[in-house]
């Protein structure tokens, strides 16, 4: 289960070594924007040694490598793959070819390293072209596990202001959710960047959930609780999911095809949703409330 992803600047030891204790479901070690050109080598070496020698307690790890129009990305792939993070995040994924280029580099690196498990990819969609190509990017490689929207670079590319309300990214958000769901993969919303505005952060997280995102990234540990809370099922949702599964079981026992619950027909999508809710509830230790 991955609701929250926390960005950790790749060259900041204090944050890197404390990253497992900040409450996020996944951590993103950033080798890209958070690292100045003169420190790219140091960040890459620090993240590599961290993945290799630090006990991260089984936490999911993602490394944001540098974009494929830089001189850094190939070395990033080579060195990270050998240490087996769960995913690599590819910034400025605008075309399916970008993803395939990195996919091939990962395959070569995995072969050289004798990697036992397959590293997955999370393309970061942050250009107008990337938004328009979202489905093609999502289906460019079987490694692609999720799409991730990056609104800061995107709004620069769209030549509009980035606002807290986010009207300027409405289209990109719904487009990415639709593309990712059509490709049957996860989809993550852009971080809310005002780390001192807690109310704004909650609103933004709620918007993301209402639109269908799987979860959201954050640049600050302060917003992780909001993300984990909003992207977890509520007690009412968990209780309802139990009722749905019970109604299904009873209908089967009685040999009935169609069933209703609370005056509403229970169809396949409702059952699928109930299953997902219960799966998530189990993972976070939620149970049915006392009747």
């Amino acid at each position, binding site marked *: 289960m991955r609701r929250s992803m926390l960005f950790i600047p790749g060259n900041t030891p204090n944050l890197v*070594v404390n990253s497992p204790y900040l409450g996020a479901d996944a951590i993103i070690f950033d080798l890209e924007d958070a690292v100045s050109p003169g420190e790219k080598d140091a960040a890459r070496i620090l993240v590599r040694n961290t993945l290799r020698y630090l006990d991260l307690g089984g936490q999911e790890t993602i490394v944001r490598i540098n974009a494929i129009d830089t001189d850094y990305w190939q070395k990033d792939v080579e060195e990270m793959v050998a240490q087996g993070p769960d995913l690599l995040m590819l910034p400025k994924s605008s075309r399916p070819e970008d993803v395939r280029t990195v996919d091939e580099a990962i395959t070569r690196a995995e072969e050289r390293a004798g990697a036992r498990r397959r590293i997955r990819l999370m393309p970061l969609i942050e250009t107008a072209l990337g938004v328009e190509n979202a489905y093609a990017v999502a289906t460019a490689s079987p490694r692609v596990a999720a799409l991730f929207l990056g609104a800061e670079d995107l709004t620069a590319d769209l030549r509009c202001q980035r606002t807290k309300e986010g009207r300027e990214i409405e289209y990109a958000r719904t487009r990415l959710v639709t593309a990712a769901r059509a490709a049957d993969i996860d989809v993550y919303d852009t971080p809310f960047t005002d780390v001192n505005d807690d109310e704004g952060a909650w609103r933004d997280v709620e918007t993301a959930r209402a639109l269908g995102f799987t979860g959201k990234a954050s640049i600050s540990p302060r917003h992780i609780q909001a993300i984990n809370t909003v992207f977890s099922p509520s007690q009412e949702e968990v209780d309802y999911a139990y009722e749905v599964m019970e109604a299904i079981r009873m209908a089967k026992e009685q040999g009935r095809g169609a069933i209703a619950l609370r005056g509403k027909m229970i169809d396949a999508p409702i059952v699928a949703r109930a299953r997902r809710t219960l799966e998530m509830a189990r993972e976070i230790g939620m149970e049915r409330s006392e009747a």
Partner: protein
Amino acid sequence: MAEIVRKAAAGTLESSDVYVEIAPGEAGIDLELESVVKEQFGQAIEQVVRQVLQEQGVTCARIRLVDRGALDCVIRARVETAIVRGGE
């Protein structure tokens, strides 16, 4: 074998980091360590540093470290970065 041909540095003086300076040496490894936890962990830190130097094939260098409570993975990373920057 990696040869240190120029003076180079890596890391910072921030908490949990270690600042490492490396320079060409005359004979063997000349190691100088300053650390807030030198009494408790000085020997262990030195051991990590010597291990990285050995892994990287550095047999002759002057190396100075100012430790701010860095964990082993950070010490390893900063020493390796200094070697890369100071090597050929």
